[in-house]
């Protein structure tokens, strides 16, 4: 009740924040979170990733057809041995402060990324580069540590202006540039406020954008975002909601003001078992828990549409193994399995020796529908004599407690991947994201073999095998991947939502009055 009250009041408040004068050609959109940094190396949250796309350019981009296209580079040639690549840069490009873009900026970006004192999470993406050198004002030659197939695909990173970093290639998260960025992209930063960012069109861009201004407003409440989209027909609302909550999708299905467009992100939900927890290290218990949970029911009731998973790959993934049958709820079978394994019910909770099937279920408060999902799971597990103790914690604490200290038995979360699923860090016993303490030599061997192969067909086969093994052994209970839709105002024309990056082709978007 309180939530509903707060939601509806936030609608009116967000309306105060986002509505604008009638004559301005402004594209307005709300974000769930504030962008933390507009310095591309540190743009790690999705809100920052999307905004950086409007301000900066990369050498190449993936176009609407999924093909690679030159952006700051006009052409390129890979070295015959695939140990390097030569880019010819677009001429006449200017930074937002009027300075000329040149090959030195590309070299600087690579050197800055590789400087050991520049600390950022995606640093490993630059690890393959051995050296970069400018060849005149508009030529760059980059060499690699090892042969790389289709090396141009690795140059999607944004280019920084050398002249804006007086202290050299050591770039800090705290650099003022993160708040006052200078890019070559279609938009310049007008104001980076505490809860809003406004951008104005860059008239010097080689393909100037058609919408004059962009305004992003931090609007944490989803229902406020949806209401603002309902006003999108005229000037009162927003023109896009990036992630439309699934339960709200039907509102706009036959709307004459809003269209629904899929926003493809490679992501899936999972319930993680801590394999160091007593009871959960037993595959029978993990299997019984999986059999007790009705994923379709939870998905439909709380999150909307999506696909039920049988492993760590979504159906659109090249690694999806169609022979793997996702489990279906079977309470009877789950009870029978636990009985056979010697877990006897006492006072409603199963025990075997000193092992009691009562688990601490830690939830991130910021996860969508976290309370409803956990209540549903709790009720279903109760039917097989497994109890959970719910603990809801805020985001920072969740990361510390679950990911760092691993003080949990069960948890629920989502993984998102940039392009295709890379599950090595999740399930290899030495994987840096293996916070579940999972250790299975068969899985380790498969992942190691797959990693060392250069034959993509073989790699795919290994991944498909992995899919089957993980479905059987259940390091996680793989839940679902959601159908994600953006809501766009019908005032917008020429729209295309780039998977993951969202605004890559935003300069082609138009906003009719």
């Amino acid at each position, binding site marked *: 009740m309180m939530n509903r*009250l*707060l939601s*509806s*009041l*936030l609608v*009116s*408040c*967000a*309306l*105060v*924040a*986002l*509505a*604008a*004068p*009638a004559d301005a050609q402004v594209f307005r959109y709300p974000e769930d979170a*504030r962008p*933390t*940094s507009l310095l591309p190396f*540190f743009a*790690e*949250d999705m809100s920052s990733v999307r905004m950086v796309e409007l301000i900066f350019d990369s050498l190449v981009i993936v176009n609407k057809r999924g093909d690679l296209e030159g952006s700051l580079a006009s052409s390129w040639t890979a070295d015959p041995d695939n140990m390097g690549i030569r880019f010819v840069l677009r001429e006449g490009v200017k930074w937002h402060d009027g300075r000329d873009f040149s090959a030195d900026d590309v070299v600087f970006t690579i050197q800055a990324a590789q400087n050991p004192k520049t*600390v*950022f*999470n995606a*640093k490993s993406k630059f690890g393959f580069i051995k050296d970069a050198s400018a060849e005149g004002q508009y030529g760059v030659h980059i060499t690699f540590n090892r042969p790389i197939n289709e090396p141009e695909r690795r140059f999607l990173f944004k280019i920084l202006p050398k002249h804006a970093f007086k202290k050299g290639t050591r770039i*800090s*998260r*705290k*650099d*003022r540039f993160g*708040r006052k960025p200078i890019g070559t992209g279609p938009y310049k930063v007008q*104001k980076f*406020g*505490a*809860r*809003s960012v406004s951008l104005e069109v860059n008239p010097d861009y080689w393909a100037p954008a058609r919408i004059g201004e962009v*305004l992003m407003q931090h*609007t944490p409440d989803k229902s406020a975002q949806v209401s603002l989209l309902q*006003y999108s*027909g*005229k*000037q*009162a*609302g927003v023109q896009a909601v990036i992630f439309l909550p699934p339960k709200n999708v039907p509102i706009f299905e036959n709307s004459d003001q809003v269209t629904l467009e899929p926003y493809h992100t490679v992501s899936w939900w999972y319930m993680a078992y801590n394999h160091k927890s007593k009871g959960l290290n037993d595959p029978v218990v993990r299997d019984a828990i999986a059999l007790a949970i009705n994923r379709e029911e939870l998905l439909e009731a709380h999150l909307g549409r999506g696909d039920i998973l049988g492993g760590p790959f979504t159906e659109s993934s090249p690694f999806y193994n169609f022979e793997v049958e996702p489990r279906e709820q079977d309470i009877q079978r789950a009870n029978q399995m636990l009985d056979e394994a010697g877990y006897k019910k006492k006072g409603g909770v199963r025990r075997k020796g000193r092992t009691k099937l009562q688990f601490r279920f830690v939830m991130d408060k910021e996860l969508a529908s976290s309370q409803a999902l956990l209540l549903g799971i709790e009720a279903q597990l109760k039917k097989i004599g497994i109890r959970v103790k719910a603990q809801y*914690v*805020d*985001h*920072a*604490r*969740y*990361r*510390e*407690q679950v*990911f*760092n200290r691993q003080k949990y038995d069960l948890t629920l979360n989502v993984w998102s991947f940039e392009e295709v699923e890379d599950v090595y*860090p999740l399930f290899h016993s030495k*994987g*840096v*994201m293996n916070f579940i303490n999972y250790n299975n030599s068969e899985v380790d061997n498969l992942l190691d073999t797959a990693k060392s192969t250069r034959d993509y067909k073989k790699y795919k086969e290994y991944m498909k095998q992995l899919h089957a093994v993980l479905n059987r052994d259940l390091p996680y209970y793989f839940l679902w991947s959601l159908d994600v839709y953006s809501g766009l105002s019908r005032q917008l024309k020429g729209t295309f939502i780039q998977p993951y990056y969202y605004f890559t082709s935003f300069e082609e978007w138009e906003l009719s009055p």
Partner: protein
Amino acid sequence: MSRAARLAIAALRRAAGGLLLLVGATFVIYITIRSAPGDAIDAISPMGTPPDVKARLMAEFGLDRDPFTGYLAWLVRSLTGDFGESLVFSPGAPVMEVALPAFGRTLLLSASALVVCLILAVLASLLLGESSRRQQLLTGPLYVATAAPSFVVAVVFAQVVNWAVNVYLVQNDYVPPMWYPIPIYTESLMPYVFAGFALIAGDGLFMDFFNAVRAELTALRNAQFIAAVKAKGARTVGHIARNMFMPLLSGYAARLPIVLGGVVIVEYIFTLDGGGYLLLEASRERDFPVVVGISVLFTATIIGMNLLADIVRAVIDPREVAHGG
């Protein structure tokens, strides 16, 4: 010792006490924030961030020191006006560059709400005069209605405004009305007016002021010295106003902490870009220098206001100093 000297000593003593209180408060705030589970690194770094990267970030963010050493270093630096840099909210920006403008808006909102509330209370007291049974029928329900916390008032109020906006938008082809949804980025004052209303109508603020003013006014009107002034045929307004100033100022100073507390949530509700929003967001992101910085501003304002009230009271009423005030 002259009265001025006694006054100065009392003021200095109060100021020293206030400063100590502030230092104590910053210690508690700093240690609490630093001891909270999860830190700024957890808030920003994705899962799988290598330990060496984390360690370097910890050092860069000054989180590699234990909270006590960290506090001492912070205290020494803050004495020179350097409150550190924001870690997550606006990475690298000096804390006060982030906190001061936001807090300024908050303070302006709170102070304006209090001033408006005071003016309304005085006007209402003058209009209604002395309390009577008939008036109690009116003020009784008003008491109950305004006893709700300010954020609850804000919720209800926002619902009403929301409904009005909906009706207006539908009837006017979705063109926003001039009287309401004017965005914060156009420097409009309307959202602040709405928030101010919630502050005045909530927490029993208006009725408290109203009752205090009316009681004071009634007492003064019936006071012997006023009767004497009247008997001489002089005007009483000046005398009444001067004698009302002190209790009103005390009430004002006493109320400010409550209003500043309420404003944190009310600001969030009305999406205002103030200290409340900053405090909540920075806490969520574990940006402890910003949290400490903005808390210092809140605490210093409250202590400063109380100090100011004491000094003014002492200037007006010599007995305050004579009693060691």
